[in-house]
């Protein structure tokens, strides 16, 4: 089996302008820091980014917004990044706000081959607008559609050379869910280990989902 470790430059060179990208991370914790910086260096633009939040202006994917590389964001929270709000009001960036649990399940649905999810969250609120509702056992649910993307960029604690991944504590968040929903999955790992060093029970994302790994440690 081939070694999936590639250089940071090569990894990002695979991303075309206008790509849709799922980013792991929650307020930049568990987000792929070096991949973000390399996207900025290579000036990939017109991106659609899907992530829990847009972090802060000079943190994590918040930097992509500040650098004006983003055309659209699908996210649950932009409150701590005034740049996202400013660009949204100016009409420079399209923002789709999704309740956090719904966002997780829409991405999961996309990754596991479901046609959508039925959730009670958002029923009777502005989130319901334009969506179908379904009654089940007398209870109303919103039909929320799956989300997939061209790329998923993840941050892992450990990766082996096949691409098996582990995550640490709250840095796990959206990463393992997004690993299923990106057509190409690139993981930035703190520790890169020989195959066999991660025990089967410890693997949180199996290698078959991961296309490329890069190191999170600058050379």
């Amino acid at each position: 089996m081939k070694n999936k470790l590639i250089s940071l430059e090569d990894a990002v060179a695979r991303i075309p302008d206008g790509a849709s990208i799922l980013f792991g991370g929650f307020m930049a914790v568990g987000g792929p820091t070096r991949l973000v910086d390399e996207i900025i260096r290579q000036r990939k633009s017109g991106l659609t980014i899907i992530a829990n939040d847009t972090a802060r202006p000079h943190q994590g994917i918040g930097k992509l917004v500040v650098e004006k590389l983003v055309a659209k964001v699908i996210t649950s929270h932009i409150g701590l990044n005034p740049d996202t709000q400013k660009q949204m009001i100016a009409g420079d960036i399209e923002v789709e706000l999704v309740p956090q649990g719904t966002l997780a399940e829409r991405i999961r649905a996309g990754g596991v081959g479901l046609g959508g999810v039925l959730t009670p969250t958002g029923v009777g609120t502005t989130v319901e607008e334009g969506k179908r509702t379904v009654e089940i056992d007398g209870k109303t649910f919103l039909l929320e559609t799956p989300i997939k993307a061209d790329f998923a960029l993840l941050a892992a604690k450990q990766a082996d050379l096949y691409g098996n991944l582990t995550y640490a504590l709250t840095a796990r968040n959206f990463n393992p869910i997004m690993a299923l929903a990106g057509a190409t999955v690139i993981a930035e790992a703190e520790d890169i280990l020989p195959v066999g060093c991660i025990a089967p029970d410890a693997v949180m994302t199996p290698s078959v989902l991961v296309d490329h790994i890069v190191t999170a440690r600058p050379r």
Partner: protein
Amino acid sequence: MDEKTLIAKRVALELFDGDLVNLGIGLPTLVARYVPVGRHVFFQSENGILGMSGPITGAENNDLTDAGGSPISALPGAASFDSALSFGLIRGGHLDVTVLGGLQLDEEGHLANWMVPGKMVPGMGGAMDLVTGAKRVIVAMQHSAKGESKIVKRCTLPLTSVRRVDLVVTDLAVIEPTDSGLLLKETAPGVTVEQVIANTGAELIVSPDLRTMPLEG
């Protein structure tokens, strides 16, 4: 005692041994400080942990944070998980209590707490899932803001959920939304029923068992 401490202390009495509890940002976070002695409560942070506790200086870890990205610590028995499981706990009825701040609360017990159109559009984050899915929803907020009651006949701000919240604790009163309307159950120490009514923009039903707000468990 300042108003926020009073609210936090009163809310803390609603938490019981073994409860799984999610505290919203701001005022609700203070509740963790006042959990009565002898009650072991699991606090969840929706970014993926239950059993969180305050940070330990010198032991901050970049991979162990709260939903705002600030360092926390974890207690024995803590568990970490991904966002789908985290919201599975919230939406699936496994979360005993959520304590959230509020912008408006109305006579039907509907909460608005996530946006002010044209002014503040932070996104709902986890609030809609929390209010929809928690077994018990407690709103912890100041009774009024800028001289206007936050308790109103009908919310004019976009709702967080159409689920009726279970309890509202303010600096003036404890109010329970019921089928027949907002039931005034407790007044803060030194506050009269008349003062609560005068500061409330909605109809209140005064409970026959009205009492002064207890602050110690």
